[in-house]
């Protein structure tokens, strides 16, 4: 057996100078080294992670142990942290069982029991414990890439190991984080190549190697794409045409590519009796069109879009729901026992904006009830996107629309024995032009509802209804899709799920445009939209902080938020990701309008989700009052950033750059200050301000939700 194994830990081990680091060398000091706040960007798996408290110490990035950004970073690679205030040890566990231990005051990190030196030790600054980020990333087998003004931590493809098992060839590809992959198969007259691509993964070991094992003759590993979101491709050269399947192994951080000559061998090698190793035919065999006529018949192709093999497994409790677009993620209590479907691979890009490619069917609706709640499980033929809305008191209704979905069979009224549920309906809400299946829940009292794929079963969408009111600041609407959560569900269900819990104190401000995209221009007044939006956003940030909010800016300079040389879609999605990953309470995008005509003037606030209209109207009113700009009203329209953020979101078009009067105003800092003050006041009026200290009630304002 030939193996190509790369272990990034070797380098770290060479750096090890201490033999044991589990005993702290120095007691914690209340006054640690200086932490200089920074707005440097941090990227993990192509996702910008928003840190609330990112700083620089001794030239390296550090963050607080309880920073939401750190939790999001760990979750992105299937890891979680465990730390109790007042203790010295921070344990970080990864889905595959890897254990990383930081000790306060010790400049060595323990990686699976092996101490590895760090430039400096975790430390206390004031009452907060800070961890160095780069050693943490390396301990997690993340590559550290250079990036202007920030840090890019890229999971690695760490090994490619072929072996032969009977008549089939198996190539195991291991990564440093839960894998998502695409497979493709190419035949030509002289070459047969199976390529498995891993979006978001890099490699420091690109190159080709001969591997004469079974049907495989060689492997080529290459990396492409931007440094912030590279793709590593493993191309396996084959002796001749073959069938293949891929199966997730090793807690999700490895994939076995099973290669066989025919379907009988393939199925024999991937027994359905092993639920964790169910094979999925990612791509049907492409019979080469150039085959000569006397070539023996190609093996039977695996049918496209095969029905996922389902292996019902006896279980006494429900698998966890991996939420999508919602804020909480605890599994429903024992007692509800929906069937557990086998896991399948989740090929597809990681972008949260990726829509499902085709219409999917809902083939089954089942209900499992426990005293504390109900779970509705919808079985799907593939990934779907959905949108949910909740009406507050007194309606307390909830509905979820699944896009591009066809309900197989008639509309259903789900019967529930629970007193707090009046009615649940599943129906084909629309067929033309859009296919929408609606799940409508009418309770008898306030309920909390969570939506997401069921852990380990990305083709099952779970809706959990709990006998308790939602949090006072819970969002009234959200979006999600099973495409993304399918990836998040790969690691064990004990890990925290994305997105992070909503931070009720956090506002994300998005200054429109920037970098290569200046937006609208008024050369006569020397105005550039991207500069004006940043000026307003900076003032707005100051005003909101003065109110007591935490604020994250999607950009604080003249640059793109997305990956370098990224696409427009990546740029817009990156701005959404900042807010979604941070679990922001409210998202505000600031823009300046423009027209081919110099006549239009005034300010407009846009919203998309109907439940965001009240926020838009409140901010619009206060902005108009504060600045005196002409009121062009609030308008519902489908702008990307207010569609793909999962919290109340608005886009403010402050004034017209193309109008001489407005342009005169926009050139004055005092006007920009007034606009910012008005937006800040609108947010305060809508929310009642940031939450006060624990136990202190904060004023509540009606959300003003509108019925559909």
């Amino acid at each position: 057996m030939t193996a190509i194994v790369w272990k990034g830990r070797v380098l770290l081990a060479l750096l090890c100078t201490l033999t044991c680091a589990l005993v702290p060398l120095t007691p914690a000091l209340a006054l640690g080294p200086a932490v200089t706040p920074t707005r440097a960007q941090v990227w993990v798996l192509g996702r910008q992670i928003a840190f609330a408290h990112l700083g620089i110490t001794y030239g390296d990035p550090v963050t607080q142990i309880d920073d939401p950004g750190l939790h999001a970073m760990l979750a992105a690679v299937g890891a979680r942290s465990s730390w109790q205030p007042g203790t010295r040890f921070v344990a970080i566990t990864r889905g595959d069982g890897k254990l990383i231990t930081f000790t306060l005051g010790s400049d060595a990190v323990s990686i699976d029991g092996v101490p590895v030196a760090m430039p400096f030790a975790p430390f206390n600054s004031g009452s907060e414990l800070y961890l160095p980020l780069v050693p943490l990333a390396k301990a997690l087998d993340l590559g550290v890439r250079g990036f202007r003004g920030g840090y890019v931590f890229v999971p690695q493809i760490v090994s490619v190991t072929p072996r032969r098992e009977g008549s089939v060839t198996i190539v195991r590809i291991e990564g440093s984080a839960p894998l998502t992959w695409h497979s493709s198969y190419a035949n030509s007259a002289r070459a047969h190549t199976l390529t498995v691509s891993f979006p978001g993964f890099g490699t420091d070991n690109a190159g080709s190697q001969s591997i004469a094992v079974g049907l495989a003759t060689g492997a080529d590993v290459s990396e492409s794409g931007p440094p912030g979101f590279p793709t590593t491709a493993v191309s396996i050269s084959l002796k001749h045409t073959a069938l293949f399947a891929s199966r997730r192994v090793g807690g999700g951080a490895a994939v076995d590519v099973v290669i066989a000559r025919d379907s009988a061998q393939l199925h024999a090698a991937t027994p359905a009796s092993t639920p964790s190793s169910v094979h999925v035919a990612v791509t049907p065999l492409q019979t080469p069109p150039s085959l000569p006529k006397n070539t023996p018949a190609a093996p039977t192709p695996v049918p496209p879009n095969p029905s996922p093999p389902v292996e019902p497994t006896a279980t006494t409790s429900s698998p966890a729901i991996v939420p999508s677009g919602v804020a909480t993620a605890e599994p429903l209590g024992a007692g509800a026992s929906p069937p557990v479907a086998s896991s399948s691979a989740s090929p597809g890009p990681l972008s949260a904006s990726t829509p499902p490619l085709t219409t999917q069917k809902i083939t089954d609706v089942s209900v499992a009830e426990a005293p504390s709640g109900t779970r509705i499980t919808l079985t799907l033929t593939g990934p779907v996107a959905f949108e949910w809305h909740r009406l507050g008191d007194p309606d307390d209704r909830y509905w979820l629309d699944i896009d591009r979905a066809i309900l197989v069979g008639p509309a259903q009224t789900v019967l529930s024995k629970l007193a707090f549920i009046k009615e649940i309906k599943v129906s084909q809400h629309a067929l033309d032009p859009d296919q929408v299946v609606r799940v409508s829940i009418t309770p008898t009292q306030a309920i909390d509802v969570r939506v997401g794929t069921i852990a380990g079963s990305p083709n099952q969408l779970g809706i959990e209804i709990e006998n308790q009111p939602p949090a006072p600041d819970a969002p009234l609407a959200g979006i999600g899709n099973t495409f993304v959560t399918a990836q998040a569900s790969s690691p064990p269900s004990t890990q925290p799920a994305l997105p992070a819990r909503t931070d009720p104190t956090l506002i994300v401000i998005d200054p429109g445009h920037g970098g290569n995209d200046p937006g609208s221009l008024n050369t006569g007044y020397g105005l550039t939209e991207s500069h004006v939006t940043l000026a307003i956003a900076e003032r707005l940030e100051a005003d909101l902080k003065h109110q007591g909010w935490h604020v994250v800016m999607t950009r604080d300079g003249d640059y793109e938020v997305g990956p370098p040389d990224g696409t427009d879609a990546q740029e817009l999605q990156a701005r959404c990701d900042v807010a979604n990953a941070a679990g922001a309470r409210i998202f505000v995008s600031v823009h300046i309008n423009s027209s081919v005509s110099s006549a239009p003037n005034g300010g407009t606030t846009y919203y998309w989700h109907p439940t965001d209209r009240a926020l838009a109207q409140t901010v619009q009113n206060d902005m108009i009052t504060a600045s005196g700009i002409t009121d062009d009203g609030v308008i519902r329209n489908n702008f990307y950033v207010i569609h793909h953020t999962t919290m109340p979101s608005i886009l403010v078009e402050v004034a017209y750059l193309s109008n001489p009067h407005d342009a005169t105003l926009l050139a004055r800092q005092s006007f920009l200050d007034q606009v910012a003050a008005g937006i800040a006041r609108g947010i305060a009026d809508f929310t009642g301000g940031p939450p006060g200290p624990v136990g202190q009630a904060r004023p509540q304002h009606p959300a003003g939700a509108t019925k559909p």
Partner: protein
Amino acid sequence: MAVVGCTPKPQSPVQPQINVYFCKVGSDALVPTPFSVDKSLVGSRLENALVAQLLAGPAVPTSTVVQFPPGTTATVDLAGDLATVDLNGSIAKAYRGGASDEIGLFKSLTYTVTSVGGIARVQVTIAGRKVPTLPGGEFEIDEPLTRETFAQ
């Protein structure tokens, strides 16, 4: 300016008329403008003529309606109730207009294309590719647009 296939004013009672919708600047108000079209134009040829007229602007030039950037070209293909409009030229490189004009462009395009019987949805592509927004734009176009898209 009128393009081939479209005549600004009705010329004969038997010549079919159809609306090209322009959008007023600074608002989302539509300005339906009837054009007589050649009887020989049906299907995608009719749609291409209408979109060409939309891109060319009103018969009498005016600054009161939103217009596609000069140099924008378009081709229309039909499949069932879906019209795919591929935009090319200057608009495919970078959009530097504002939000209200951007909405106006797509609203006028959607209303114009769906003014032909049997066409209800408009999928916009840019230089042959389905994209989430115009380059530099904000308005989502990766899903087919309908008249309902613009309902408040």
